[in-house]
C-alpha cells in the first residue's frame, strides 16, 4: 500500500473542507481525470465515505459532506450554483408549499445563501410570471405589503392568502 493518499481520498478531503466552509464542490473544480471520476463513482456507490453526497445538475456535478451541512442547505447552494434563479425560486417555493406547508416571503431570497439583489429579484419574479413551466407559482400580498409566493399544487389561494397574512401581520400582532 502506498503511503500517499489516492487522488480520490484527497478529493474527499477537499469536499469536506469545502463543506466545512459552507461550499459545494463542483466536479469541474476537482480537475478529475476519467480514472478519478470512476473512483469517485465507486466510492459513492459503495458508501465507503458515507458522508459524501452527490447532486447532479445541468451544469455540473456537485459534492458535499453531510457532516458539515444538511441536504436541505446543500440544495439551496445547488440551486444557486445552477445559475437559473427563476428555477431556484420556483423549486424552493414548491418545496416550502409542500413540506411545511407555507407560502415563501420573497424577501427570503435577499438573504444568504441566495443573496439576490432587489433589482435582480424583481426581474426574476417577472420571468417566473411568464414561464409556462412555472404556472403553478402564484403570489399573494399581505396587508403590510409583504409579498409571498406559493405553488397552487400544494396550497389553495384562500389558504395561501391567510397564511401570508398570518406570517406577515398576525404573528407580529400576537407575539
Amino acid at each position, binding site marked *: 500500500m502506498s503511503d500517499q493518499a489516492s487522488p480520490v481520498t484527497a478529493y474527499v478531503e477537499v469536499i469536506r473542507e469545502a463543506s466545512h466552509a459552507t461550499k459545494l464542490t463542483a466536479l469541474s473544480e476537482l480537475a478529475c481525470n476519467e480514472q478519478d471520476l470512476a473512483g469517485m463513482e465507486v466510492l459513492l456507490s459503495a458508501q465507503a465515505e458515507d458522508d459524501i453526497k452527490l447532486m447532479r445538475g445541468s451544469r455540473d456535478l456537485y459534492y458535499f459532506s453531510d457532516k458539515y*451541512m444538511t441536504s*436541505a*442547505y446543500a440544495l439551496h447552494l445547488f440551486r444557486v450554483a445552477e445559475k437559473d434563479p427563476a428555477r431556484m425560486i420556483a423549486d424552493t417555493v414548491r418545496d416550502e408549499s409542500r413540506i*411545511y406547508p*407555507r407560502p415563501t416571503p420573497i424577501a427570503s431570497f435577499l438573504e444568504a*445563501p441566495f443573496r439576490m439583489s432587489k433589482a435582480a429579484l424583481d426581474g426574476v419574479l417577472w420571468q417566473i410570471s411568464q414561464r409556462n413551466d412555472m404556472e403553478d407559482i402564484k403570489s399573494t400580498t399581505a396587508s403590510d405589503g409583504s409579498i409571498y409566493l406559493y405553488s397552487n399544487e400544494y396550497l389553495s389561494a*384562500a389558504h395561501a392568502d391567510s397564511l401570508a397574512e398570518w406570517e406577515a401581520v398576525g404573528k407580529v400582532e400576537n*407575539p
Partner: protein
Amino acid sequence: MTNTFGYTGKILRVDLTTGKIWTDDTMKYKDFIGGEGMSMKIMWDEVPAGTHPFSPENKIIFGSGPLCGTGVPCSGRTNITSLLPSNPDHSVSSSHMGGYFSVEMKYAGWDLIVVEGKSAKPVWLRIEDDKVWLEDGRWVWGKGMFDAMAMISSQMGKEAQIAMIGPAGENQLNLSVIRTGASHSAGGHGGVMGSKNLKAIAIKGTGSVKVAARPEELMALDKYMMTIIGANNQHVVPRFPHPWAEYTASGSRWTAKKGLYWGAANPPVETGECYPEDMQSVGLRTHKGFQDLGAVAEKYTVSMGGCAHCPIRCHSQVRIPQLEERYGIDPNVSNTCVGYSGPNGIMFKGTPDLPGQEKGEQSMISKTLGSHLADDYGVWCNYGQMGRDLNWTYTHGILKKVLPADEYASISWDLLEKGDPAFLIDFYDRVANKKGELWHIADGSYWIDKRWNLGEEYWAYDKNKLWSKLGYPVHHANESQSQVGALVSCFSNRDAQNHSHSNFGAAGVPLELLKQVAAEEFGTPDAIDGPMDYTPMNQGKANFVKWALTRTMLHNSLTLCNWMWPMAFSPLKSRNYRGDTALEAKFYSLVTGIPMTKEDLDRAATRTFTLFRALTIRSMGTADMRNKHDQTTSWVITATKDKNGKEIPQFTKGTDRMTQEDMEKGRGLVYKAFGWDEKTGAPTKATLEALGMPEVAAELAAKGLLPA
C-alpha cells in the same frame, strides 16, 4: 421545620396593618408544588369570596418554586397571585415576572412571601436573609420606578433584588404592574401593593438552595437539556438557512445569522450560526432588538439580557441616543415583546419615519420611549389592549363625549395624529397620575365599558381582539392551534398567558413532524391542525388543552418559564426533533429527592388547576362556568371573509374562526378530561375528593356551588 431539598421550607408572612412578621411552614402546602399552586391554596384558605382587591383583607403572594435558584435552566420566574382588580368579579389570578427576584427569595430562605393588611403610611419591606423589617417608604412614594429603585439600591447595595410599583400602582390603577430589575414586569397586581401602601419588597440573600442529588447528576441533566433547548419560545428551527439546519421558519425567534450583530456592543458581537449543541452561543440565538424593534435596531443593540439561570437571553438592551436628545430621558432601554409593542399600541395612528430617518426608526423610538414610560410609571397595557381601547374610544368619538370639554381640548391629539411619540409622555402622565377622566382607560375593558357604555359593537369588533366579556384580550387563542388555543383562553380570568400550546405549534418543524409528536403526547395526530386549516373538535385536541392548562400551572408552580417550557421539541435531527416532556419531573426528582413521574406532576397540576377553577366559581357565585365564564365574544364564532369579500366557512382552508356548536362540544370534552361536570364545567364532589381537596368540596357544597 421539615428538612427539605429544593424548598427552603419557610414562608414569610407580613401583616402591614399590625406590623407583625412571622414564618409559616412551606411543606404543609407541598401537594400544590410551589409558586402559583401554593398561592392558590393560601388564597382559598384565607381570602373569602367578596373581598375587594384593594381591601386590607386581600393578600398578595410572591411565589418561587422548588426548582428556582437551583440552576435548572429557565427557572428565574416569580409568580404573583392575588385578587385581580381588572376582573369583573375580582377573581383570583396570577401575574409573572422574570429577572432575579425569586432566586434572591430562595437565597434569603423564603419560598413564598405573603403580604396582607394595610400600612398606615407608605413602607417598603426589607429582607436580608431571615432579618425582615418594614422601612419608611415616604421618601420613595410618588417616585418613578427607575429613581426609586436606585434609591433603595443605594440603601441595600446593588446586589439587592427589588419588586416595586410605580405611581400607577400607588394610585391603585387596575392596569398597573409590579416590576423587578430594569425590565421584568408582572401586569395586573400593582394596585394591590399600592392599596397596602407597600412601595417595594427588597431582598438580599446570602444562602443557597439545598439540592438532593449529587451536583454531577444535576449538571448531567442540565447538559442533556442543552440538546433540547431551542431559542426564545422554544423555537427549535432557525429563521434563516444555516448549514446545520434542515428547516427554517420565517417567524422563528432563532434569529441568529452571520452578519447580524449586537451592533452597539464594543466590539460588536456577531450572532452567527449558533450550532444547536454549542453552549457558548446559546445566548446569541435570539436577537430581540432585531425581532421586536426591527432591522434598524441592530446598530443600537448593546446586548441581550434575561433572567436568572436562563441561557436564552430574550430582553434586548439597547442604547437609543434619540431618547436623550429629544426627550431628555435615559437612552438605555431594556425590554421584550409586548413590553415594547404594548405601549407603542397607544400610537395607533402609526409612527411614520420623518425625513432623514432610517426605515423604522420612528417606530423604534416610539417603542423604546413607551417602554421607558410604562416601566417608570408602572402602567400595564393589558397585553396590548389599552392601545386598542384608546383607538376605539377615540375613533368612535367616545372620548370626546365622556371627557370634559376642557380636558379633551388639553390633550395633544395632533401629536397622535401625526405619529409623534411625544404624545406618549403626556398620555402616561395623565393615566398614571389619575388626571381628569382619561385615566379610566386603565380600568380595563370590562370596567371601561361599564363607565363609558361602549356597547356590543365594541366587543364584537374582531380587530379589538377582546376574547371574553370578562375584559381580557386574545393571548394565543384561536389563531394558535385552533380549538386548543381557543379553549385554553376560555379558562382564564385574564389574558391566558399560556405558551405550552403556542410554543408547541410554533416550534418551526413541518406539520408532519408536529403531528407525529402530537400523536405521541395526545393520542392522535389530529390533536393539531396546520395554521388556517382547521378541523372540527376532537378528543386529541381536548387532551392537548388539558396538557397546556396543567403544564402552564405546573411551570408557574415549579417555577419554570412557560415562555420556554415545556420542552416538546429539540433542534436536533439526531433526536428526530423530539424534546422531552418528562424533563420537569426529572429535574423535580433530582432537586427535591421526591421521586415524581411526569404523570405524578401532571396530576398535581390538575389538582391546582381544579382549585383555581373552584376559586373562580366561589368569586363568581355560580357553578355555571360554561355559560357565565367560559364563553367568547361573538367575533370568534363568526365567519370571516376573504380578500374579495367572500365568506370563508369555518373549517375550510383560509380561516381560523370557530363555531359555537363546535366550541360547546370542545368545552364538554375538556370538562370531562378534568373530571368536571360536563354540563356546567364545575368540578364535582367526587373529583375534588379524589384530588385530595374534600375541604374545597365541602365549602362549595355549603355555598350551593357544586354541580348536581
